[in-house]
């Protein structure tokens, strides 16, 4: 039947049909455009229709999917569950399940379903929409990882901070509880740190002292003046410099904190209080000095009484009596020498060993010392020889008495420690800027390892200790102090059992 004039109903239907067709195309377009994988599934789980988004996620083509059961892409259990729930409740809101792709990869998806019925209300299937979670999962995982990394980092930072704080409090405790005073000056030489002992020693409050340079500090606190004098404005390096601050004696050391020569990172100044040590040292010296004085008087009485006896002032003595008295006298003399040496040492240590400089010829002093030793050399059968300087000696400014004493001490030692029949040679040499006196013997010598200790107080070499008990161990210590006070040097060259040469040199100032 040809329809030429359509009835209004027919027109209506035609319009409706058109609408329907366009709606269908709209639905299809939307379906295929939708980035979300969607399937229309029959009530027994056969996929009736799907969209390209599922192709993309599953790896199967649409043709491979349609007509297949849902288990093709979902697990059996998930499928059963989904169908059951959808049929019962009409829909399932986003349930997390696993989709297996064509190449057996597992993809996390969130599935939602919606039951479909026809006009008669009969169930014709359901829609299932899948929302891919992998990226989210990955992001989540990523997030979790970065969160934990962040937490770890935070923990590390926290730990570092705690360590730093601990370190700081430890350092600060060390600095605070040091018994020594400590000052730190920054690169501009301004005070940046002072510990309590330094505050106490210098009589200053840290608040007044910070950020001030040493000369600024010295300007308003007298105690800093001696420090400034020793260290200078720019804090030069010093080591254990002794100085007096008020009633205290302190030892100052300073060091640059900089890492290199150019980089002046500031300075560290350490103040060590030696007041007590100084006091003890002084008391010791005073004790020695007083004891020696007190000992000298009774020793003088013994000496005088014995010498009166020896000289027959109180009646003639028998030869035997005389011999005993003479021996007692010698012992007493030794005691006096020891006391005199102790007094000299005490004076050296007190800084009261005064030097009287006179213009003298070293050669004359050497000859005087040799003359004084002739008698004991002869007694011990030692040849005592003198070698004159080649050139004539100039006069030099020295303490003649003490230098003579030093030469005499060296000769007496040489005689004492050389077996009878040996030889002691004294020579004087003269260079342009120094004069040298040497005393050479062919005696017992000193072992290599003991040579550097020879000039220390009370030291006596072990081989010498064995052969003779006499000797104070002070002679060379005193000699060294005398020579060094003259700006000279004293030394020893020796070989055990072959002999020793003791020499000293004095500078000549033209």
């Amino acid at each position, binding site marked *: 039947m040809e329809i030429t004039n359509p009835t209004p109903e027919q027109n209506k239907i035609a319009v409706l049909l058109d609408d329907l067709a366009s709606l269908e195309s709209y639905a299809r377009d939307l379906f295929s455009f939708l980035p979300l994988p969607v399937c229309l599934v029959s009530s027994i789980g056969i996929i009736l229709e799907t969209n390209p988004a599922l192709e993309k996620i599953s790896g199967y083509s649409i043709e491979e999917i349609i007509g297949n059961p849902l288990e093709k892409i979902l697990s059996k259990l998930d499928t059963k569950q989904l169908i059951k729930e959808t049929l019962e409740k009409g829909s399932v809101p986003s349930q997390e399940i696993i989709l297996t792709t064509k190449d057996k990869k597992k993809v996390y998806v969130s599935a939602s379903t919606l039951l479909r019925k026809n006009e008669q209300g009969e169930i014709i299937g359901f829609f299932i929409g899948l929302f891919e979670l992998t990226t989210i999962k990955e992001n989540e995982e990523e997030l979790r990882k970065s969160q934990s990394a962040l937490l770890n980092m935070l923990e590390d930072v926290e730990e570092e901070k705690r360590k730093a704080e601990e370190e700081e409090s430890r350092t600060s405790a060390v600095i605070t509880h040091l018994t020594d005073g400590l000052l730190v000056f920054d690169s501009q030489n301004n005070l940046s740190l002072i510990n309590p002992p330094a505050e106490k020693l210098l009589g200053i409050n840290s608040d007044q002292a910070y950020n001030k340079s040493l000369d600024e500090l010295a300007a308003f606190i007298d105690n800093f003046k001696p420090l400034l004098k020793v260290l200078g404005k720019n804090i030069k390096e010093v080591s254990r410099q002794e100085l007096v601050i008020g009633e205290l004696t302190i030892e100052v050391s300073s060091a640059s904190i900089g890492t290199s020569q150019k980089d002046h990172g500031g300075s560290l100044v350490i103040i060590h209080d030696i007041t007590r040590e100084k006091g003890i040292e002084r008391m010791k010296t005073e004790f020695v000095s007083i004891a020696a*004085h007190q000992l*000298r*008087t009774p*020793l*003088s*009485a013994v*000496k*005088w*009484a014995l*010498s*009166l006896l020896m*000289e027959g*002032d109180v009646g003639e003595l028998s030869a035997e009596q005389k011999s005993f008295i003479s021996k007692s006298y010698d012992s007493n003399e030794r005691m*006096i020498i020891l*006391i*005199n040496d102790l*007094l000299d040492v005490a*004076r050296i240590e007190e800084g*009261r060993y*005064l030097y*009287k400089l006179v213009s003298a010829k070293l050669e004359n002093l050497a000859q005087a010392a040799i003359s004084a030793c002739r008698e004991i050399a002869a007694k011990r059968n030692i040849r005592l020889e003198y070698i004159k300087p080649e050139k004539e000696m100039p006069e030099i400014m020295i303490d003649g008495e003490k230098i003579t004493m030093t030469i005499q001490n060296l000769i007496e030692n040489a005689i004492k420690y050389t077996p009878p029949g040996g030889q002691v040679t004294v020579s004087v040499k003269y260079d342009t800027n120094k004069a040298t006196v040497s005393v050479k013997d062919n005696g017992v010598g000193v072992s290599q390892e003991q040579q550097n200790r020879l000039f220390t107080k009370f030291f006596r070499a072990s081989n010498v200790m064995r052969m003779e008990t006499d000797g104070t161990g002070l002679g060379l210590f005193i000699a060294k102090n005398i020579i060094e006070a003259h700006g000279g040097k004293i030394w020893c060259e020796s070989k055990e059992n072959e002999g020793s040469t003791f020499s000293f040199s004095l500078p000549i100032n033209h």
Partner: protein
Amino acid sequence: MAKKILIVEDDKVLSDLLGKKLKDAGFEVALAYNGVEGLDSLRANKPDLILLDIMMPEKSGMEVMEEMNKDPETSLTKIPVIIISNSGQPVEIDRVLELGAKDYLIKAEFNPQEVVEKVIKQIGN
């Protein structure tokens, strides 16, 4: 007439020994055992020479010399003084020589005989 020596020395053994030695050498000897006694004795006896210790009770040898110098009659230019001390400290030696002492002897380093010789060197016998 024998020359008069005053020994001012607080140690009795030393002054006895020295006194004996000087008497045997023909001197007249007076003994004083501290600085105050020494001053009294020298004013009363007008000795020809004084042997003077430094460290003594009451008045030290230094003070004795200082007081002697205040009176022209007893000044050290008039009465020679030889110091007999045991200190031997350079400052002490310098000071006594400055005050006018003729000599300084460290007792432990001299025999009585040598002291007598020093006395004779100063005033003869």
